[in-house]
């Protein structure tokens, strides 16, 4: 059972890693002026909810399967994702707003955030991998 949990987490984590990389690539495209803000933001906004769901799912899974440490590790990031999604002002077009993204260093902070998430997911990936192997061996 434990193995199944971690296999799922591993897959989910892979998806999240890819998503982070996609965010970084798209944002840096915007930074380099390869795409315009409008299309960049609409591309990224599409993936905000999948990312949120994906990560919340793993977090809840860890809670359910009583892996406290991993749950607590994931909790802040999951909370941040939800908070960010909820706090979007009503007039904005999503977490990434094409009219704001070039202002007040938002692009940079989005970039930074994506980088941190990438690092975090990589860390999680190896943790899940280790745990999965451990669980498989135990089985």
């Amino acid at each position, binding site marked *: 059972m434990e193995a199944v949990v971690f296999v799922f987490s591993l897959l989910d984590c892979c998806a999240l890693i890819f998503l982070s990389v996609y965010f970084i690539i798209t944002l840096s495209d*915007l*930074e380099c*002026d390869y795409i*315009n*803000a*409008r299309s960049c933001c609409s591309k990224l906004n599409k993936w905000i909810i999948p990312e949120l769901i994906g990560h919340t799912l793993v977090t809840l899974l860890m809670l359910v399967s009583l892996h406290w440490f991993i749950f607590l590790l994931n909790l802040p990031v999951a909370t941040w994702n939800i908070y960010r999604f909820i706090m979007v*002002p*009503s*007039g*904005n*077009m999503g977490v990434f707003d*094409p*009219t704001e*993204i*070039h*202002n*007040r*260093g938002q*692009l940079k902070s989005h970039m930074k955030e994506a980088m941190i998430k990438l690092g975090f997911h990589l860390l999680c990936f190896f943790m899940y991998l280790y745990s999965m192997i451990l669980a498989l061996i135990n089985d």
Partner: protein
Amino acid sequence: MSAPAGSPQRAASARMQPRLGGAAASGAAAGPGPAPRQQNGPAQNQMQIPSGYGVYPQNYSAPSGHCFQGPGKMTSLPLDDQCGDYYSGLYAVPTQNVVTPKTTNQQAGAQQIYGRAPPAPHNVGSTPEYFQGAASSASHLYTSASQPYSSLVNHYSGPAMYSANSSAVSQGFPSTCGHYAVSTVSNAVYPSVSYPSLPAGEPYGQQMFTSQNASTVRPVRDNSFSSQNTALSHPSPLPPPPSQQYHQQQSLSGYSTPSWSASGPPSTQDNLVRNHTGSLTPANNNPTNTVADSLSCPVTQNVQPPKSSPVVSTVVSGASSARLPPTANHLVEPVASVTQPSELLQQKDMLSSSASSPAPDPAPEPDPTPAPVPTAPQPSKVAKPFGYGYPTLQPGYQNTAAPLHPGGQPCSPAYSGFQQYTQQYPGMNQLSSSLGGLSLQSSIQPESLRPVNLTQERNILPVTPILAPIPNLNLDLKKLNCSPDSFRCTLTNIPQTQALLTKAKLPLGLLLHPFRDLTQLPVITSNTIVRCRSCRTYINPFVSFIDQRRWKCNLCYRVNDVPEEFMYNPLTRSYGEPHKRPEVQNSTVEFIASSDYMLRPPQPAVYLFVLDVSHNAVEAGYLTILCQSLLENLDKLPGDSRTRIGFVTFDSTIHFYNLQEGLSQPQMLIVSDIDDVFLPTPDSLLVNLHESKELIKDLLNALPNMFTNTRETHSALGPALQAAFKLMSPTGGRVSVFQTQLPSLGAGLLQSREDPNQRSSTKVVQHLGPATDFYKKLALDCSGQQTAVDLFLLSSQYSDLSSLACMSKYSAGCIYYYPSFHSTHNPSQAEKLQKELKRYLTRKIGFEAVMRIRCTKGLSMHTFHGNFFVRSTDLLSLANINPDAGFAVQLSIEESLTDTSLVCFQTALLYTSSKGERRIRVHTLCLPVVSSLADVYAGVDVQAAICLLANMAVDRSISTSLSDARDALVNAVVDSLSAYSSTVSNLQHSVLIAPSSLKLFPLYVLALLKQKAFRTGTSTRLDDRVYAMCQIKCQPLVHLMKMIHPNLYRIDRLIDEGAIHVNDRVVPQPPLQKLSAEKLTREGAFLMDCGCVFYIWVGKSCDNNFIEDVLGCPNFASIPQKMTHLPELDTLSSERTRSFITWLRDCRPLSPVLHVVKDESPAKTEFFQHLIEDRTEAAFSYYEFLLHIQQQICK
């Protein structure tokens, strides 16, 4: 179609005016289709009802007689007008030029400035702008060979150049072409440099091209000329540097202070007077002209129309004459400046031919300015009197002049030439910057750093307006630098590192007014536009030429090759002097762009009006005013023969108007399916203005009465905007939306969010942000299709401007708001609408524009303010650009600037003019880098800093909260003053000390806190607040400063001392009063200039003479409550007052509405809320505010 849907339509159509044909298509039942069109043949009075379409016959009246008109009839109406005007206005001067050149031609050593060729205008109407002189030898303006034409160095300074240009202009006209055709040399090879005024299409075009004749005809212009005369004449006779300084300072500061006048040697005064009287001889032979002279000549010339008064007492007059605020130049007198140069030219010609050989200037380049000196000042001096109705001189003038024969047609477009047009509004500051550059050099440092004890200083506000500080650059660069009107930086000394900037606690940013109406603008037509190969910077005056063949970019430091074409200077017709090209001599230039700069063929001017015709709108009665304005200005709409126009009205349905040429009358097409809006006849809704003019006029005449009995209260704004977007997306253009209530139907409907009880809350102000992203998305869609949406909100109740404004904010439109508008109950708002519409409809416009801002490596821009969409890091997408749009940019210092002593900023605005020409306007600003904190403080431009802070505060209040923004504003003062006092070690810290450059900072911040946008505790309607924020974001600095800190004058005792003379009128110059009730006495009357509105406050025991003579009332009690005009009384004080107010009005694009406010009338709160130094129940007085700051600092 279902019956319920149909019946209201029938009702609606029944109330339509008989002249309108109507076709109502109900989309719901019928589905989109252009079906109605075929029924609308002109001859048909009745429509057939096609099955499946809800089409209802209208009451058709017999078509009125003039309904049928051939397209040809109306095609080029406006153009012809222009031409006619031009012709009639042509004076003899050009001819004179023609003659003179020939004579001078033979003189040995004569220099040819540039060739002239017949203009090759696109069409007759546009000729003026496009004249390109061929590089023929037609005119030789200068006899002295030694003159390197350095006058070109900066376009402010070179009178010679101007005169040349202007002459070119006048000659370039079709009428004169004949003369020149002979001399045409094909210089297609060479780049042509022309100095046309910008977009030709403007309504002012005629004026620009009319020449002095015209000016004589219109007294106004004369005046400006004469004024320029005086201005010009100043410098020439005054070699001594101090006097120059004096003058420059004047022009700079615009105001004279006694001390300045002292610095001017008496001789100056004499000269002044002399010049006024028109004595030519004395000064002419003066060889000792200095650089400053040459510089200042042209400057003053163009800048200061009001300077004309010959009568004025010496010192005062000089000083006061400079007083015209920089912005002021929107007078209708562009003509004057245009023609003036030609005058100059003449003069010059005459001079030179008359063998007064100017002393050649031995000084070699790179600073060309000195060279023209000998000729330039002299002609300028002489010139004025000539053209401008100085009787004595007139004969001489006419001698040379011969009538022009209109009729030469332009032949080849490819000639290179050089011409200059003035733009409609003379820009004073432009010049003043260059002028001032010289003067303040040594003195500015100590003065701006002089510590001021704020709490002790009682009169902190100077009696004269504050002008932009001059960057501390060397002379040459100062002269070349961009005008502070177009381009300003909050710190004129850029700190070397981010650490230093952080230490100074001052905001760093730029304030731009890129599309400002300019008087002088060099326009360059060249096959290759020289740009840096790596950063794409346009070549500018601050690049360095390593040798003849290479130049080093001043932004990225790359070394570039100089293209072959650039080696030739069309102005001097010389080869191998790339550093004398106009691009390198002017920091503001305009290029005519080649097809490389187009993604598609330049779009025509397209205007769409989207009008609310619901019950609310009809009740308010704006339609009458709008239609009237449109009818009056239809011919003045900027555009060419391709101009298109369309109308859409909406209530709960959307009405389109088929105006296709050939119809006997306009046809109304109603689409009631607002969920899926379609265009009933996509081709005939936007029609050619000239071909369908009669139909358009019919519609405009009928429109105000068409909906008089409407009972429809709903407003489907969102669907109407979607329809407008669909209509505009193939071409792009301008959509003007008139809305009178909260949108209540269809997409984008809004709910009322304002809680009236919270209006005066001191805590939280909610709903400053938009409620929906519908309008933002729509704006971005529009922006992508090069369509701008301008919003006119005429509403009596809450209309959620914060949401509606998004449609303009992100599509680069503009926003106008008329709270409690009613055409009869609120005449002042109606008048305001009328005036603003006039300006709106006739002002210049640029389409499909983008603006890119570049700065020296090491600096970076991180936040932009204004109405636009930021497409990439430094590229602003502007669907439309108008001359009243301002922008702000925040900067940060990414890398240390230790290895450079100068930084540069360049904005390039690429746009399509209303004549369908792709143009690039480039401004370049150069600033020094400093390493000490004291220098940073010395260079603070407090007005720019305040405007930038205001922009930042708006952002802050929307993104976080209003109180946060207010705190940030106060902290900005506290931080910067405490940072300063910590650098000044020898002062005790218990007193509040500010450097002189920052002494107004606390006052302005207090003024900001009391603005409608940021105030708390005073009842402020949400829409008013949001509108104030919108204005802060998109107004240029000059207008914004008036809004933040109005000017107060006492006007019951206007005297002629210090008065200036404009248009034969004496304009008194009362001193500025501080904005405090302590300055108001019951015995006085005061004028407050708030930028967009004037208040005259009349004290209770005001002198009866004033009330009688100026207000036309027997006593105080009989002054009416609502008085918006001063009667034209034949008394001295009335004349003075009116001339002062007219002068203030002429200084800005919009003429403000005047309110006479009686003391103790209810309207006085409007007036008193602007007295920002006083304490209100909710806010500090100025002194209390200072104490508060001091407390914060000590903490």
